[in-house]
């Protein structure tokens, strides 16, 4: 072992020797140390003003507007606390004694036997078999009836009599539109027919009514017309002018048929 170490040391020495054997030595002039000089600022005296005299500043303390009640710290009070639980637990421990097991009454339970046949519940009996009936009778043949929906032909009746029972209004002709000569002729006939003074007469209207068959006549002053009730003879009677007037002194009515010129 030592021999091997020695050989190794030898080899290492030889290796080092060979490695450094061919090295050239070069002389390198050492760089002279140059002292670097840094200037320093000379100390200067800076004049300063003298110390200022202390000034007394008078400050006024303002009172608090609202008094604040300071609560004094309460002094600590020692209180003795003791926990007696453990002691009570130890003292009041309850001793539970277990009762010894005793022998009970035993009963034999018999296991019911399984049913040999299952019973079906809710069974619905099938309906009875329907019996078919054959209807051999045919429906009766309906009989057709004819109903004529046409409305009956009506018959017209003549009802002129019933119509004549109703009053017929006849409007007065406009006297103002009559020729003056004709109106004077009518007025003359009115005076002759009634025998009344013309100044005492107020003409209510000139109407054309049947000469015959006027059963009733009434004056409707509101509409300026007369209501006439006619008879059947009035139908074929010619229409002639008829003047209705009122007497001024007593208000009585006068009438007169006049003739066309």
């Amino acid at each position: 072992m030592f021999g091997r170490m020695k050989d190794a040391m030898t080899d290492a020495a030889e290796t080092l020797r060979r490695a450094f054997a061919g090295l050239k030595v070069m002389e390198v002039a050492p760089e002279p140390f140059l002292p670097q000089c840094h200037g320093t600022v000379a100390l200067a005296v800076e004049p300063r003003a003298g110390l200022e005299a202390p000034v007394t500043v008078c400050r006024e303390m303002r009172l608090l507007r609202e008094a604040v009640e300071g609560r004094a710290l309460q002094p600590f009070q020692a209180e003795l606390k003791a926990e007696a639980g453990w002691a009570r637990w130890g003292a009041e421990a309850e001793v539970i004694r277990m009762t010894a097991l005793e022998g009970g009454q035993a009963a034999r339970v018999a296991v019911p036997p399984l049913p040999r046949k299952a019973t079906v519940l809710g069974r619905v009996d099938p309906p009875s078999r329907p019996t078919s009936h054959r209807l051999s009778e045919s429906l009766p043949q309906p009989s057709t009836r004819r109903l004529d929906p046409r409305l009956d032909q009506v018959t017209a009746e003549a009802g002129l009599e019933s119509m004549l029972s109703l009053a017929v209004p006849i409007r007065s002709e406009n006297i103002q539109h009559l020729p003056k000569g004709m109106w004077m002729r009518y007025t003359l006939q009115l005076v002759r027919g009634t025998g009344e003074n013309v100044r005492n007469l107020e003409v209510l209207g000139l109407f054309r009514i049947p000469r015959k068959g006027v059963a009733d006549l009434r004056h409707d002053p509101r509409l300026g017309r007369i209501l006439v009730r006619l008879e059947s003879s009035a139908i074929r009677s010619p229409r002639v002018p008829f003047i209705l007037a009122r007497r001024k002194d007593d208000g009585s009515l006068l009438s007169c048929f006049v003739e066309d010129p």
Partner: protein
Amino acid sequence: MADPIKLAYFMAVKEGASYLGGLLVTDTSGIPLDFRYTEPITPTRLQGILYGKSLEPHLKEEVIQKTLLKELKTPPDLFILSATELAGGWSGDAKYPVLAVQKSQESPLAKVGDAFRAGPRELLIQLSEGAAPMRVVFAASVDAMAQEQAVVKLLEAGYHMDLAEPLERVTAALQSLVVKDS
């Protein structure tokens, strides 16, 4: 001398379940010349079902009106209906001008005898002084020339009578006949 103008007034009314109609022919004074009426027609329940809504127009136009017109010996110059009947669509005979007269609320025309055409089938005619003009509505079958001729006759008749009044008389007569029968 020209024949006097004859005005025919037709009215059909329903009284209860019955229908009846009347036709009054007057002269230009409103004096009745002829009056015909039908007996009340009471359609059966089955007829009412079968005819439906056409029952009333059929009864009035085809049954009542034609029956009454057959009875007229001489045709009228004007055939006057109520405005309601005419508005329902008159489909009767067109041998004579068919029209409806109605009192209007219009302001009077300038003078008596004036006519104002308010529509192709509608005119206003002034029959009396100061009163509201009468509204005249013609059936669709009446042409313009026939309308003009009818207006002349209406003006002549309206001078003596109230043109709309006879329809009231026909209605009153029909109602009195119904009461008399019942």
